[in-house]
């Protein structure tokens, strides 16, 4: 179940909506602003425990399941990398090129 049904909208718009939602969540939880390409876990950043929170949040919000080889910290390092992961898994779930 997804509250961000992109339906017929183009990929770029979908990406933007996803990106915006991830930024919103990050800023609400960490109470500071983030750029889409900032490494969240670099020194002075977030703890890797927080990465699991991101996993759970992305799954709930975008109706995806993140498992196996996709469970790598690198996929959650930046808003951009999370957006790419979400879009790939949503395409797969929608019957696209499923490789998960």
């Amino acid at each position, binding site marked *: 179940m997804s509250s961000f049904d992109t339906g017929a909208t183009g990929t770029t718009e979908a990406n933007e909506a996803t990106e915006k939602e991830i930024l919103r969540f990050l800023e609400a939880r960490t109470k500071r602003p983030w750029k889409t390409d900032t490494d969240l876990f670099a020194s002075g950043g977030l703890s*890797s*425990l*927080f990465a699991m929170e991101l996993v759970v*949040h992305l799954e709930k919000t975008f109706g995806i399941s*993140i498992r*196996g080889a996709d469970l790598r910290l690198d996929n959650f390092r930046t808003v951009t990398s999370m957006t790419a992961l979400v879009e790939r898994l949503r395409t797969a779930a929608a019957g696209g090129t499923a490789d998960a």
Partner: protein
Amino acid sequence: MTRAPHTAPDPHPAAGPHRIAVLGAGVMGVGITALALGHGVPVLLVDLDEERLDRARDDIDRELRMAQLMGRLPAAADTRALHLATTTDGVGDATAVVEAITEIAELKAKALADISARVRPGTPLISNTSSIPIDELAGHAERPEDVAGTHFMNPPYLIPTVEVIRGARTGESTMAAVGALLDVLGRNQVVVRDAPGFVTSRVLHPMINDAARVVQEGTATAEAVDALMEGCLGHPTGPLRTADLIGIDNLVDSLRVLHQHTGDEGSRPCELLLDKVRQGQLGRKTGRGFYAYQEENR
């Protein structure tokens, strides 16, 4: 530091690979089960509390995924080799039993008497007790030589070293079998003698009690205590965040055991800890302890 030799004789040479039973699906039972599954060891997980057992598969799945995310367990790990039960009827063919039930000596004594009557002689019965002397527990098993202590810490997949306790009556082959199992689980072991609280609880738990007392006395907030212990003394998470991770009910039980066995007043659980238990603020597992936790962040 002692490591068991890899050539340790297998007590069940015909039984093939490891297959463990874990008693107690609480914080530690879940964590130890995730660690075992993550290393390809099938687990029978037993808890009397059906509700707890209902949540266990999800909790274990979550812990496995966290471990994968942090690169601590292989990506292929899942919960397919997990079996759940509310009775110990099925423990008979386990190659080892890990007891991780509530830190109350009478409960553990009963559980050990029960499982030792069900398993094959020579099957290691491993207690994960924080503080109860192993030899005291061993006295309730049919074969005290089969009983040893391992002190896994939370979360087991993240903590590379396990304190192993050799009781006065623990057999050589039991120690070897425990060492072999820990090798399979990818943990280092440090073997110590039996005593109340062994090494880690004996040192850590009174320290956490003191940290709570400092907050109780109004000297500093929990945040300030943890910030000082982390920032000045290099404690990895701060003692009060650690209390939340352990579970404050379990911490209080362990302190009581220490206090009863050693008479050390520093181990008498302080009022603030007792208050938190009365209010059900047990730490991460209930969403609130010294800190508040989001559901997603437990």
